[in-house]
């Protein structure tokens, strides 16, 4: 593919349309993004991050892409976000209009726009940089705002939009699983549990009025079935009133790729999901092992959908498992997981979600030998699957993921000497699958639910 920023391409020319005149439309969309009413969702952090970066470079010292690339200028967090700041200065500030050269304002050209598009997809919005920035400036947020503006002029990866949010709204899930296929899958899972564990459990589907609706990332059924099976065994062991749901009830996929690139798409998907929960009259929505879905339901939803319009509780499956183990509602025996296990803090669950202790308590209860990865918790490195990257493989993009984030992560995992990497996020699983394959690591990954189910004492 044509080179626009570096040797990778996240977005093809078909979407990019380099021969059209896009700059005026971009500026129009950006103008709208700076209006606090039209773009209220992140307006304050957005303008603060545009205006008050001190150019101290602290962000760069913690950014996995910058560090692992041998400190390439184009991957510097502040430089990358400056692509947007330069436009802002030049067109939307007085100083920049009068003295662009002084304050770093720059004319936007079609070529620069191409580079900006690709640059917006070289950062996973992991926000490690925002955590350490002395002024708490958020270059990740600026990248997300850039993606939003681009989405408004129809530039978005088709994995996330055409075949992501749009498909999810149309089919009920982003994988495009129709209801008969879904039923076949659930039946197969029940058989598998019987074959591997030797007992039969019922997996309820589309039960109305259930206490818990467990909504997984639909990709888990296809690619990480062990997580779904594990969850079913856990809910069965807990003896609670629970259900899965099929696409016939509306949305049965907890993902929301709008989190990654568009508030408009985000809200549409979220409302459809909420409607499904209301139609099913469930009491608690259990977010399966999916990082960004947890962020969406636990935090982003709060001010977007008024409380009275969502008459159900939201819990991460991690919170529930942790609670049930502590209450003794489910019993686990760590000797059933003797291998050394380490845990990767998904950005969306940890730094953005605050779930640090839950997964650790669970793993310590269910595994003999739990080992911390260094660094961890708020300083955890993004695995490189975040913000949609896990499902973006076009061109050489997979290589980009492996040679940057993946490189750091592989080394971290190796250093622990663990045989299993426990993960609680689908995108992390997709990324680790590739990392393990690419770096030939002698480890396997496992969903937390899988490890818990393995340790269950019935």
């Amino acid at each position, binding site marked *: 593919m044509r080179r626009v920023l570096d040797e990778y391409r996240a977005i093809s020319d078909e979407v990019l349309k380099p021969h059209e005149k896009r700059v005026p439309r971009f500026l129009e969309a950006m103008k709208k993004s700076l209006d606090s009413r039209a773009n*209220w969702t992140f307006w304050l952090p957005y303008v603060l991050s545009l205006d008050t970066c001190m150019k101290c470079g602290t962000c760069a010292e913690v950014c996995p892409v910058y560090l692992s690339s041998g400190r390439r200028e184009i991957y510097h967090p502040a*430089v990358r976000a400056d692509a947007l700041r330069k436009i802002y200065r030049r067109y939307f500030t007085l100083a920049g209009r009068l003295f662009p050269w002084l304050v770093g304002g720059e004319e936007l050209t079609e070529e620069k726009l191409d580079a900006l598009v690709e640059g917006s997809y070289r950062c996973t919005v992991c926000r490690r940089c925002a955590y350490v920035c002395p002024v708490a400036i958020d270059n990740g*947020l600026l990248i997300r705002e850039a993606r939003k503006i681009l989405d408004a002029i129809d530039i978005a990866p088709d994995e996330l939009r055409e075949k992501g949010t749009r498909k999810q709204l149309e089919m009920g899930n982003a994988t495009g699983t129709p209801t008969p296929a879904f039923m076949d899958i659930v039946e197969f899972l029940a058989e598998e549990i019987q074959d591997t564990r030797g007992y039969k459990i019922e997996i309820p589907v589309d039960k109305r009025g259930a206490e818990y609706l467990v909504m997984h990332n639909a990709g888990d059924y296809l690619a990480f079935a062990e997580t779904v099976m594990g969850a079913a065994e856990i809910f069965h062991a807990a003896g609670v009133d629970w259900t899965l749901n099929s696409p016939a009830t509306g949305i049965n996929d907890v993902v929301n790729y709008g989190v990654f690139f568009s508030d408009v798409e985000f809200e549409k998907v979220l409302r459809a999901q909420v409607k499904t929960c209301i139609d099913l009259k469930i009491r608690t929505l259990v977010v399966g092992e999916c990082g960004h879905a947890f962020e969406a339901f636990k935090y982003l939803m709060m001010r977007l959908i008024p409380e009275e319009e969502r008459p159900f509780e939201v819990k991460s499956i991690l919170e529930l498992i942790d609670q049930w183990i502590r209450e003794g509602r489910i019993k686990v025996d760590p000797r059933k997981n003797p291998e050394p296990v380490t845990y990767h803090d998904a950005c969306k669950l940890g730094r953005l979600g605050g779930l640090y202790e839950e997964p650790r308590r669970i793993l310590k209860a269910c595994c003999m030998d739990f080992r911390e990865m260094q660094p961890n918790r708020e300083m955890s490195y993004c695995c490189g699957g975040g913000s949609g990257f896990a499902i973006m493989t076009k061109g050489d993009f997979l290589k980009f993921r492996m040679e940057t984030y993946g490189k750091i992560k592989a080394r971290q995992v190796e250093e622990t000497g663990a045989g299993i990497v426990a993960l609680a996020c689908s995108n992390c699983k997709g990324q680790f699958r590739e990392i393990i394959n690419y770096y030939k690591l002698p480890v396997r990954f496992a969903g937390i639910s899988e490890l818990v189910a393995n340790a269950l004492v019935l």
Partner: protein
Amino acid sequence: MGWLAYLVGIVLPYVALALFVVGFIYKIICWSRAPRHLPWELFPYPHTAGERLGEMVIEVASLRSLKLHNRNIWLPSLLMHFGIYAVVAWLFLVLLGLPVALLGYLGGVAAAAGSLWMFTKRLGRDLRILTTPVEYLNLLLVFLISAGGIITGFFGEGLAVREYMLGILSLSPRLPARPSLLWEIFFLEVFLVYLPFGRMIHFAAKYFTYHRVKWGESH
């Protein structure tokens, strides 16, 4: 030259103060009237007012983020910031009638040295790639004020400075006893006008980025 002294010593102080106050208040109002954005905090963060204050004090006093993650510029930046704190403290003490010349001079030396040191750091590859001319200009301005204060003897003239400031504040402005002080007064005026509109407003922006974004919004 009488009219120039009049301009710098009598007229500009009011213009500068007015612009500073208006600009500053404008910014603060603009930020505080922002619509409540979606929750976007980063964990872990301090929850009680006491914890938050503690974090702020530690950050302001030790520049901990730089110390932990960007050692390369921690000392120069610390030196410069402490110099500025000292000069500001000196100004307040002068107003209160406690002209501690040593504090002023120490602050001036620290800020001058720190800003120069930062300037050289900015020329290094890692910072150069993200520095625009205005960043160099900001450092030069800090250097000019602090070096100016030393060279013109401003920091040693606490009593004269006090008298002049009181004159300004009581709306009966009089030119300072020593005309050479006008240089420093001019630099300070430029600084005041520039402050709300440049990046040096970060000390105020920081309040919002921390309290309203990074630390959640009390929920």
